[in-house]
């Protein structure tokens, strides 16, 4: 992939120019669908965009004893890495990519979570610290399953290249891996029942409690970009890529939309779990999927 292509993918499609409106759209779909399931009207279509603009126009109050530079840096790092992750998604066929871009995508997807943990601790707020500690525990819990599932998918298909993965036909093992990834997505996107790091009622949104104005706008944007990247990754693994790029893009968008609706339904149907229950769920119940997937993948690899 040449530098020009990489820049085009990062800045135009499926990077920032596409990903930012897509992030607002996904945030709106999530809010609207949850509202409709709860019998409410929900926000108008442009609401995430209005929220972003409104927050950009606000001033950030002075916070005594807090490193302002750090507080400004964390959301920016989160936004840029999430946008980079979206830029790596092979939405269109023959869109480039390189060997190992799946590993880079996973690393980039993990950075916003690390930024949230660091931001909570740098805010010197007790609620922020509790939220960060919860996020750290949650991250350790679901990431084992998430990474094992993706490794199993990649190992079974003999490649760590996203485009190759998207073009290869699905196998039953791949579906087990996709299921494990789907189970991890609510925790990754801080949705119910795993929304305890940013619990609004208990700890005032946790790590975000000290953020206001443009910094909060950046956090919201990074959250939306995480939505696009995470659902896009699952859509890439599910969708059979065809030679006709229009159809590929359409299938990709439809699948991402479907995953957002599925996650929203789960969020609306469930209540927030406590931290110990969440950790037990991932370490005791879900890890079986991942271990099964990895062991089968390794077995298949040895046999072939």
């Amino acid at each position, binding site marked *: 992939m040449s530098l020009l292509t990489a820049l085009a993918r990062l800045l135009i499609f499926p990077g920032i120019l596409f990903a930012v409106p897509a992030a607002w759209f996904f945030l709106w779909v999530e809010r609207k669908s949850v509202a409709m399931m*709860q019998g409410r*009207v929900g926000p*108008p279509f442009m609401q995430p965009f209005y929220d972003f603009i409104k927050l950009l126009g606000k001033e950030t109050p002075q916070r005594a004893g807090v490193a302002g530079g750090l507080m400004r840096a964390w959301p920016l790092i989160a936004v840029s890495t999430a946008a980079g992750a979206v830029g790596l998604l092979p939405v269109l066929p023959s869109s480039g990519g390189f060997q190992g871009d799946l590993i880079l995508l996973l690393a980039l997807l993990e950075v916003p979570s690390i930024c949230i943990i660091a931001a909570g601790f740098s805010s010197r707020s007790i609620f922020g610290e509790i939220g960060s500690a919860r996020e750290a525990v949650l991250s350790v819990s679901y990431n084992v399953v998430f990474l094992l599932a993706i490794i199993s998918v990649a190992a079974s298909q003999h490649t760590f290249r996203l485009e190759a993965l998207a073009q290869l036909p699905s196998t039953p093992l791949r579906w087990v891996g996709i299921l494990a990834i789907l189970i991890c997505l609510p925790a990754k996107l801080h949705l119910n029942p795993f929304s305890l790091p940013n619990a609004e009622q208990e700890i005032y949104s946790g790590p975000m409690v000290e953020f206001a104005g443009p910094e909060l706008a950046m956090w919201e944007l990074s959250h939306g970009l995480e939505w696009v990247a995470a659902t896009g990754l699952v859509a890439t693994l599910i969708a059979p890529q065809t030679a006709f790029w229009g159809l590929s893009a359409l299938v990709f968008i439809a699948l991402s939309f479907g995953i957002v609706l599925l996650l929203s339904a789960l969020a*609306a*149907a469930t209540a927030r779990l406590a931290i110990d229950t969440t950790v037990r769920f991932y370490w005791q119940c879900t890890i079986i999927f991942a271990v099964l997937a990895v062991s089968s993948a390794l077995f298949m690899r040895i046999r072939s």
Partner: protein
Amino acid sequence: MRILTMLWKNFWGGSRTLLFPARPKVTQRFRGLVQFDPELCSGCAICKFRCTSRAITYQAGKGEFTWGYDPGQCTFCGRCVEGCTEHALKEGHTEHALSQESACPPIYLQEGELKKVYTVKRKAPAPKPATPVAPKVTAAIPESSTGGAQ
């Protein structure tokens, strides 16, 4: 699984809320804003006493009194109207642009924005009815029995 059925029904069953500028229709049982008639009020302040949400204020002065009502603070319980012996308070149909069929309590952005204060002159006390002079009752003093039958 029942929650999923509930979500499905909610999803297709329409919403129970409205977007911001739209306002719900009020029911027939909605009591409406309290309306004050200064002509009838005698300034007894029983309404202020009965108002649990402190929406009604009352200040007595020399020869006049001020009566205030803040709809933003009112809970529309109707206790003031019930307690008004002079029928100076009514629950609303016309004033404050409130009609029972279509409008709900007005939107306000600042505390006390809707408050209305009336300064009312005290009425001269009605002349006391002429009371008939009660006839003097002379109690019959029984004669002392001292020195009676001897």
